[in-house]
């Protein structure tokens, strides 16, 4: 007889949650959130685009309140992990000046099955954009602008 194993019921592995000036790797985060019981890892990578609202962008600059940002990433991830019964979730957000095509943020979500992994990753990203104290400045050929500050 083969060995019978119970469905995985371990608490989710939370983390890493980091704000960092280092170049981001999707593979690294996938490896960090994966567990032997995980069958699906969905990731989101935000890339620096060369345009925004019709204007050409030459670089992006990200600034964070690092202590609070890491805590917020942890809090939103714990909520998402509980809602979707995840096996792992990790998020890294880059800071500093980034060139076109560089990765600004990576979210990786591990789950036994794919539907939960997709839904959880999308929800974590929505929460990140709404709540985590990180700011983006667009650099143009002739100036720059912080985003998120428009009144009303």
């Amino acid at each position: 007889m083969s060995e019978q194993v119970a469905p995985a019921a371990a608490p989710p592995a939370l983390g890493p949650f980091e704000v960092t000036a280092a170049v981001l790797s999707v593979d690294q985060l996938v490896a960090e959130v994966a567990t032997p019981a995980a069958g699906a890892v969905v990731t989101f990578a935000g890339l620096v685009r060369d345009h925004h609202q019709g204007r050409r962008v030459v670089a992006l600059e990200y600034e964070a309140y690092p202590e609070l940002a890491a805590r917020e990433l942890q809090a939103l991830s714990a909520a998402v992990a509980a809602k979707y019964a995840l096996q792992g979730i990790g998020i890294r957000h880059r800071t500093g000046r980034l060139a076109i095509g560089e990765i600004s943020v990576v979210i990786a979500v591990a789950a036994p099955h794919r539907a939960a992994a997709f839904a959880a990753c999308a929800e974590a990203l929505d929460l990140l954009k709404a709540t985590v104290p990180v700011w983006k400045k667009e650099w143009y050929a002739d100036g720059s602008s912080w985003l998120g500050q428009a009144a009303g």
Partner: protein
Amino acid sequence: MTQIAGDSRATANGPPLTIRARFFALYREAAGQDEAQVPVPAGSTVRELWQHLLAAHPGLERAGAATAYTAYAVNGTWAKSDRVLQDGDEVAFLPPVSGG
């Protein structure tokens, strides 16, 4: 870090407090600094400190008026504007976030 001229009147509530104010992104550039030590009257709230800073820094007032809202954190945790400050508190002023 620089000293910002504060409201150092002693009040019935006790001696003035020294608060570490931190500015980020748009507010950091508008204030021309990323943090400042600010004396405020005992019993002051986060909102009163922010109003004081806006009045003291026209650039910050322009930036603050241009934002949809300002969020606050005290000692690294989100705080409401009516939070009463304690001596030595670190208060962060956060423009609308735009990460991702």
